[in-house]
């Protein structure tokens, strides 16, 4: 275990979580490299070797399209997330590259006060460490196959 690397990766995860929870969606694509990919799937599809994503973006342009659509096209009730990210395991995979596995819980809070354990699962990441730490690939594997009503804000 490299303590400095551990801190760098956990810091990236924490900044990512705070950006989403604070509704700074416009910052979200910046957590990825220019061609970074983001994929939400379910443990069931992953175990069956099935490629279907719940959400998939290849590169920052697609990530920005997702944000633009959430801001200007999609209709959903006002809501916020609270991310809890823990049990982060980090491995160095190159001079400027690392991989990470972490657990997450996401609570969804609606404007009427309803708080729901919306999603739990794992982040499986490939991270480019230079020039600054960013996700080359972030795979969000949800434990459950079921999603309540809709998934608007990214996990």
């Amino acid at each position: 275990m490299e303590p400095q690397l551990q801190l760098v990766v956990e810091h990236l995860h924490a900044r990512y979580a705070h950006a989403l929870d604070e509704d700074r969606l416009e910052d979200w694509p910046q957590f990825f490299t220019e061609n970074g990919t983001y994929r939400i799937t379910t443990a069931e599809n992953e175990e069956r070797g099935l490629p279907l994503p719940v959400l998939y973006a290849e590169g920052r342009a697609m990530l920005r399209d997702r944000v633009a659509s959430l801001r200007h096209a999609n209709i959903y009730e006002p809501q916020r997330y609270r991310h809890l990210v823990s049990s982060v395991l980090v491995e160095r995979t190159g001079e400027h590259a690392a991989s990470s596995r972490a657990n997450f819980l996401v609570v969804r809070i609606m404007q009427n006060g309803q708080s729901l354990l919306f999603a739990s699962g794992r982040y499986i990441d490939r991270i480019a460490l230079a020039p600054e730490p960013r996700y080359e690939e972030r795979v969000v594997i949800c434990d459950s196959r079921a999603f309540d009503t809709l998934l608007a804000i990214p996990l």
Partner: protein
Amino acid sequence: MQREWPAEGVTRVPYWVYQDEDLYKEEQDRIWRGAAWSYLCLEAELPEPQSFVTTFVGDMPVVVTRDAKGALHAWENRCAHRGALVCMQARGKAERFACIYHNWVYDHEGNLVTVAFRRGIAGKGGLPADSKPETQAPKKLRVASLHGLVFGTLSAGAPSLEDYIGPDIVPRIQRVMKKPLKVLGTYTQVLPNNWKLYMDNVKDTYHASLLHLFFTRFRINRLTQKGGVFVSKDGAHHCTYTEMVEDTGDAYEKDGMRSAGSSSSQFQLEAPELLEQVDELGDRVSIQILSLFPGFVLHQIRNSLAARQVVPKGVDRTELHWTLFGFVDDDAAMQRRRILQANLVGPAGYISMEDGAATGFVQRGVAGSADRASVIEMGGSTIGSGDSRVTETAVRGLWQTWRRYMDL
């Protein structure tokens, strides 16, 4: 609860239809376990002899199997003995199905083949010689497969599946299900509303381009584009389609619609490849949404293909089981296209995400108004096919069918 239908008839749907617990139970009897055919699974999910999947017909848990000779069967997932689930797994392969509770064993047709210690041990215990536990055996469904879609019904008197769906809609199924399928994956969207609100939404060709701004802003589907709707003779089933031509008119802009684009700051995708369609079905249709009563939807949205199964879970809760698929002979480019276009549908779908919200809004909105009714008059009061989608003709068909089943 008052159950009088408004005098206007087919153009009104009273809100108690989404709220009444007794009605929900009656629907289970009259529709789901009645004379309707329900979607069970794709044939592609039962690829080999002795494979099975578990599913639901309304509230009733069901096992669907392919036996050693390749024939399809479906039976209630309930042991004859004490009523426990016989099959716990979502899918798999099995030579026999043993209830975990007391090890009573069933074959692929749902026949009870052995009872553990039926004759007791050393002459003691066991079932009496004249015991007939088979009288409580799992109910067997009639099963039929149409172009790779498997359906079942408990009704001996229901017409054949093809006659049930009818000649207006069957060719529209065949159009999509033209080759052997490959399942790409599944997930469930849990909707906070009565199951009929979802079916009502699917059949509502009028809402699509008004609620789903993504559609309209990118001119994917506007009501000004060429398209139409087919409704089966009895009103039960529908199919709507839009042709591939991009709309260049500005009807939405002229009417100041919320979903309109604006010429000065036209909303454009940075990565429009997400939407690139290959005309794989060869008829220049970009979107086809097809529904069968009571709870099945088949969609083609560009190159995204899926079966959606509606599973009611109480008067104000519904599960939507999505199974997205491609064809066995898809090349890498087509598979990638389908994966990218998966972004259009499902709980996070650019297009589909709002349906759960809108139908939930109705469930909540009508909480205090069992005595009021929906106004369903777009396109008049007729039920039938046509070339306009500014109509609620298919919605009226749903309610005409529902009332026939419910005798209301």
